């Protein structure tokens, strides 16, 4: 028990020593509940009338040349996944039922199909990335020049939340509530908060001409500073709720996640090459952000994308162009715990602290750090599968 924790206990207890009296609270609550029930009853009645009207209009509007969609609010249909849908059948047919069902969202063309009962049509035909966020799904178009981000709600409505995003220039915080984006190297970084109907609290922060938005780790936006070829050789972390003060960290090319203490960050040393990568710890909460506790891992491709588990204990990296290895990060010299098939362009996703999902042809390999693994079939046959990371669970 630290002094701070003791002080917190005393402070919180002291703050609530004398709460004000709550007169007639139960009566007020019951009256409010009655109003809510009356309103719900009225709304459900109206919804029934509206549904019948829309059904009639829908039949009328089925014609060869459909009306083009509205630019900012598209109505994307949401279909329940019934017992006849392929994903539901695949989940039901798993040989070993999971004690705790784990959710998988899969991108299928311009749709996302989920194991928790929905199929959502995205407002763009080709997407480069989709995130599951508390308010729905955040989809990023696959345009090569300037991309557009859309929030797609569970009720099917879509809202454009950002545009003119350079490829790779969008980052979402781990809670799935805040996002940051940039139009290109050196352009201002926009930050905003996702809401149920789009975004709010948008702020624009200017940066120097070589600054690149790299990602979002914990509460920090990760920025990179590179040369003319945009090779990053130093990084900075910025809490966007506070003004930006540059504290560049030389020799680090990216920040890949939170360390096991949930406070420090894990950075990747620039210049990692060949079959070795080196990682360091960074402490953004302290006054000194000097990298420390360098740790190198052999047997992985220096150009591999690195994926750290949410608790910082496990690292996933490509050992060659066909496989990834899972490495424990709580030992000084990590040795691979497992090798899993994963082609160069496949992107594993952590479902929780101990479960890694690896897309395969026609299925998803579920690997637990305990060593257990099984495969879940998903629709699409031999097609490549793209998993949707879930944020804010």
């Amino acid at each position, binding site marked *: 028990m*630290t*002094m*701070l*924790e003791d*002080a*917190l*206990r*005393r*402070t*919180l*207890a*002291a*703050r*609530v020593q*004398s*709460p*004000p009296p*709550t007169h007639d*609270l*139960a*009566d*007020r*609550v*019951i009256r*409010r*509940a009655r109003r*809510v*029930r009356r309103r719900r009853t009225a709304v459900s009645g109206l919804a029934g009338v509206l549904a019948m009207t829309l059904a009639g209009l829908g039949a009328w509007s089925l014609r060869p040349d459909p009306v083009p969609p509205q630019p900012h609010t598209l109505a994307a249909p949401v279909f329940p996944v019934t017992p006849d849908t392929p994903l539901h059948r695949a989940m039901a047919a798993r040989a070993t039922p999971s004690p705790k069902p784990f959710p998988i969202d899969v991108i299928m063309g311009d749709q996302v199909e989920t194991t928790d009962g929905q199929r959502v049509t995205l407002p763009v035909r080709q997407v480069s990335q989709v995130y599951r966020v*508390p308010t729905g799904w955040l989809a990023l178009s696959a345009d090569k020049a300037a991309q557009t981000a859309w929030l797609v709600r569970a009720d099917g409505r879509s809202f454009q939340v950002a545009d003119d995003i350079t490829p790779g220039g969008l980052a979402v915080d781990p*809670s799935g*509530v805040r996002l940051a984006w940039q139009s290109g190297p050196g352009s201002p970084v926009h930050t905003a*908060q996702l*809401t*149920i109907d789009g975004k*709010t*609290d948008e702020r624009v922060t200017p940066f120097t001409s070589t600054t690149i938005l790299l990602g979002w780790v*914990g*509460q920090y936006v990760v920025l990179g500073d590179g040369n003319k070829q945009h090779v990053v050789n130093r990084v900075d972390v910025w809490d966007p709720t506070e003004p930006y003060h540059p504290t560049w960290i030389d020799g680090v090319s990216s920040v890949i996640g*939170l*360390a*096991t*203490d*949930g*406070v*420090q960050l894990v950075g990747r040393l620039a210049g990692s090459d060949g079959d070795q990568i080196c990682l360091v*710890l960074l*402490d953004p*909460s*302290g*006054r000194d952000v000097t990298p420390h*506790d360098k*740790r190198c891992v052999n047997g992985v491709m220096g150009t591999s994308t690195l994926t750290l588990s*949410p*608790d*910082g204990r496990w690292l996933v990296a490509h050992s060659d162009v066909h496989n990834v290895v899972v490495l424990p*990060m*709580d030992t000084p010299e990590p040795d691979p715990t497992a090798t899993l098939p994963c082609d160069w362009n496949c992107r594993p996703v952590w479902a*929780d*602290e101990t479960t890694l999902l690896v897309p395969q042809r026609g299925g998803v390999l579920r690997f637990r750090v305990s060593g257990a693994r099984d495969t879940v079939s998903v629709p699409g046959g031999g097609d490549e599968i793209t998993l949707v990371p879930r944020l804010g*669970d």
Partner: protein
Amino acid sequence: MTVGVAAAYGPGDALCRPLRAGRVAAPKEEVRVAPAADLEQEFHDFVAARSQALLRTAYLLAGDWATAEDLLQSSLTKTYLAWRRLGGIEAVEPYARRVLVNTATSWWRRRWHGERPTEVLPDRAAPDRVEEQLDRDALWAYVKELPARQRAVLVLRFYEDQSEAETARLLGVSVGTVKSQCSRALATLRKRLGAAWDGYGPAETEPTVRQEGW
């Protein structure tokens, strides 16, 4: 009447006592519908017994008494509606508490985009406790600035004395998330208090935190 009900919903009993709704199970699976007046009376009793405790938690989540009362009223309304709809809630107080915490965090997402003005603090500390009171005021001011989810974790862990597992269940997140949010909140408090209050420095008091980094 009130005394008896308060005892029934006391700290030990409240966690496991179900609050019945429209139906009451009778022997041989016979079901009868309880009069609406009975349901309301039962809800009145629960509110009378536990509203002050829930209001305290709401205050720590919201930051001021007016918002806390609004938050509590919203949460109890949801609880009451669910109770009627579901035909009974096992362990009503944990249910209400969970609704309270989740409503608080969702309010923050929707409505709280700026800092709230700090209310006038009661200042009746004895002379020899003035410094302690000032320290508490500073700490409380920083707690109020934390993101809603982190503040909720601190309230559940350090005011309600809930375990990490129970906190995770109440918030609907993993234990790992509770640990990381708690750690992050404490680090933020240490950082903000650091300049004014060196006694809370992390490295000297808890060196293992740094060493656990990997």
